[in-house]
């Protein structure tokens, strides 16, 4: 991606806004999203601040299909345009007021100087002090606080996107710390300089327009005692670069408007004297109203860009995004991917069902005279007399041997005890055999399944047998526990 490597305010705000929106998303979802954006930028340099910045810029333009940035960018320009329009209206309005001329009274030069030269100059000086860092030292915390208050007051009045941008900017001012807050402060300075420029600039343009379309006459008057000579020398000092445009002493004296003689008569006597003021006024507005603002606006915009770039490079969220973009996404989860979103209730919990264990009884010795004994899968047969006949099934037996055991046992017609290993789970092939056996034995013949346990650790497993076999629902089938004698858990029993 060959793109500009200079972040704009909208990029910084996108980082800030998107980070807040991402707060509820899982880490893996964010990683998947951001890692997915990296494919397009693989030809970028992988190291160094420029490469990282380019990646991050690409991210701000791509995340959420670029809608967040577009909205913030549009919001920024909407707010700026609305402010500029307001400033232009104000400038034009002020110009129409101070340059109002109906032929009965001259335009007061001093009023023009106050509105379009002195006022802009004083506010420009305050701005310059603020930008130089003098003001914050005199009044610590004032600028971010004041800026935040102004933005906050304005934000609610702005349309949607602009309001969102203003709020994001306020957020940066409020919690951004030195680096991020500075970007916000410089953004504030830039806006104020541009708006002030719009005010004075539109006033000057209005002045020029009035000059071109109507016949204006200028004079001067003040409640205070103003010496015409001092006025002229003051003007000469201010317009040192164009002394020729300053009216001569006689003209200055002549154009005092507060006289006993009506203005119309004076004007008739020397109209050029009353017209000559437009040049110095025009120069003064340009030199002291517009030029400083232009310089301050250029400076503040430059500083804002630098601050935005610094903040963008150091934004903690930016570092997280970069890490997600650069770090390969490893997904080792299940079919649905995001392990972190597991519904806790779906995960099985360990259990030892003590109530099931209580149903088990310790078996007593049985003999083959009264009971048929089946040994499933070579299970131990505790409690069976040594000379008793034991039939085998399962495990290493063939299916035919199983069938033979089944047939012989059913034919004997005696109660049956089947020994099974408590440490092995009940398999379907066992329940298949048991159900066949029960079918052949019929009601009235008891069948016990003796679950042989070796110790405490088999208790839980034995309870599993009880549950599984009780599910068959046969009243002539019961489960008993048998403990293998002389066995401990630690004994290595080897093969049966």
């Amino acid at each position, binding site marked *: 991606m060959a793109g500009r490597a200079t972040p704009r305010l909208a990029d910084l705000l996108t980082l800030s806004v998107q980070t807040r929106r991402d707060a509820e998303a899982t880490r893996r979802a964010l990683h998947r999203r951001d890692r997915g954006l990296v494919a397009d930028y693989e030809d970028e340099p992988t190291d160094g601040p420029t490469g990282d910045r380019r990646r991050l810029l690409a991210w701000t333009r791509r995340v959420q299909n670029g809608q967040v940035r577009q909205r913030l960018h549009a919001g920024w320009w909407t707010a700026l345009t609305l402010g500029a329009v307001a400033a232009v209206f104000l400038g034009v309005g002020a110009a129409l007021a101070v340059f109002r001329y109906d032929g009965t009274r001259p335009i007061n030069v001093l009023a023009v100087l106050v509105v379009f030269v002195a006022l802009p100059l004083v506010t420009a000086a305050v701005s310059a002090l603020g930008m130089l860092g003098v003001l914050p030292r005199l009044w610590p915390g004032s600028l971010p606080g004041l800026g935040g208050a102004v933005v906050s007051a304005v934000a609610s009045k702005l349309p949607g996107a602009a309001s969102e941008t203003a709020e994001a900017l306020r957020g940066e001012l409020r919690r951004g710390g030195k680096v991020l807050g500075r970007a916000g402060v410089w953004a504030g300075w830039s806006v104020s300089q541009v708006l002030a420029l719009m005010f004075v600039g539109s006033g000057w343009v209005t002045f020029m327009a009035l000059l071109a379309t109507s016949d204006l006459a200028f004079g001067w008057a003040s409640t205070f005692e103003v010496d015409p000579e001092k006025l002229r020398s003051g003007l000469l000092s201010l317009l040192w670069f164009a002394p020729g445009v300053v009216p001569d002493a006689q003209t200055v004296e002549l154009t005092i408007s507060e006289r006993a003689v009506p203005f119309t008569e004076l004007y008739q006597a020397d109209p050029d004297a009353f017209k000559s003021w437009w040049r110095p006024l025009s120069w003064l507005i340009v030199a002291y109203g517009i030029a400083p603002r232009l310089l301050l606006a250029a400076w503040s915009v430059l500083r804002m860009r630098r601050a935005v770039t610094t903040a963008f490079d150091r934004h903690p969220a930016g570092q997280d995004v970069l890490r997600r973009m650069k770090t390969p996404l490893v997904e080792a989860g299940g079919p649905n991917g995001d392990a972190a979103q597991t519904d806790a209730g779906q995960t099985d919990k360990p259990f030892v069902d003590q109530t099931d264990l209580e149903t088990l009884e310790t078996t007593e010795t049985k003999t083959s005279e009264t009971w048929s004994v089946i040994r499933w899968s070579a299970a131990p047969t505790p409690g069976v007399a040594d000379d008793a006949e034991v039939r085998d099934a399962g*495990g290493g037996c063939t299916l035919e041997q199983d069938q033979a055991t089944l047939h012989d046992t059913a034919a004997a017609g005696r109660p049956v005890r089947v020994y099974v290993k408590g440490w092995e789970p009940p398999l379907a092939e066992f329940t298949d055999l048991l159900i066949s056996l029960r079918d052949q034995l019929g009601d009235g013949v008891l069948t016990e399944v003796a679950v042989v346990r070796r110790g405490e650790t088999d208790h839980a497993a034995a309870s599993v047998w009880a549950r599984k076999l009780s599910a068959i629902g046969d009243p002539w089938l019961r489960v008993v526990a048998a403990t293998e004698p002389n066995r401990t858990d*630690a004994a290595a029993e*080897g093969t049966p």
Partner: protein
Amino acid sequence: MSAPRFVVVGHPNKGKSSIVATLAQDERVRVSPEPGTTTAADTFPLKLDGRTLYTLVDTPGFQRARAALRWMQDHEANADQHPAIVRRFVEEPQHAEKFPDEVALLRPLVDNDDTGVLYVVDGSTPYGPEYEPEMEILRWAGRPRMALINPIGPANHVDAWRDALGQYFGVVRVFNAVTAEWQKRIELLEAFGQLNEAWQKPVREAIDALETDRDDRRRRAAQIVSHAVVAAMRFRVEKKLEEYANPDEHREALEKQYRQGLRDLERDAMDRVEEVYDFVDLRRQETDEGSHHNELGDALGDLFASGTWNRFGLTRQQLALMGAGASALLGAGADVAAHGLSFGVFTLSGAVAGGLGGWWGGGKLPKAKLLGLPMGGRLAAVGPSRNVNLAFVLLGRARLHHRVIAQRTHARRDAVELPASGLTWDDALRKRVAEALRPVLKHPEDDAVAADTRVRLEPILIDVLRSDTRDAGS
């Protein structure tokens, strides 16, 4: 070649799902002492940027292995046709009903040529003849295969199993899915790669990716801990009092609120560290106050319990040394200012005062204090704490918590067990941490200083957490 698949098969209830849960680092895998929990084959792919490097397949256990083997033997022609017969067995329409478990577990073996078999047995139960039909069926399937002896219980039958399994499997390994340390898991994955030469590359790539991912998790955990500790050192609660209100009535409540706030900060950080390691289901229990406690948080003991600070914080000697060092430095400044005329008295007295302060003040928390307000009324406030030992206690607990979580497998469903001994702070490490924390202790109110402290603390913690988990076998 497609990515290899490792199909985990075996008798029911022998830890197949535990092995998958541990290797896939996914606690959602259904693990239960109840047999038959897994009723269908589930796939767990390991993906790197969306590209599957290998897939683990969890399967139901054999239920009618003898009957299934008999069917195959009845259809046997020559040995080279065994895999085809297994395929026929799976595809036989009636078998879906008659042998649902065998069909479900064998289907992944016949569907894909790049498939390996991991046969799982429980090394704590004796070997029995009922396993032989299962192993024979797997031999018929003709896939590269490995046997895993997973000792679930305390008894030891591993040798008997090893002898028996050796007759059917080229590779036999012991792997405890519940307690396996990280390095054991990696070694097992490496062994998967040995089953087929073509699988070595993707498996190696997967291992590298997992190692990188683990390091990234440690980094994120360090970030969380660093944020929490800095937030704790800046934490403050306050209450505006009416002009004539009795401050003593509010003092205790405010101090309690302060302690609870710190507990909440710590608990939140622990939850987030657990989430980093994909644990979202560590059991919780509700306390009398209605707040939720993580069982591990409870096992660590209350943050403000009497033993906690001794266990996790710095020793009195360390605190005294640290206090003496800092105060001596200030005293030395005064001596220099006096052009040496003070003969080092300031340095000495600073060291003594600082040392005593460290010795006696190490366990102290801030008390409520009263501040006047410009517009009238008073403000009762507790915090922020200037006691560096609070940071060390929090860090010590965070380190232990992290180590337990980082080593815990996702197959575990039991309560978390903590090692009896805490993790120690050696002098160099203690100095680095104390140095990093110094700015926020001096200027807790300054956001920029806090951000800077976090930035300084984070790399130290990354090293510490890395070292902690390496000690534990990673």
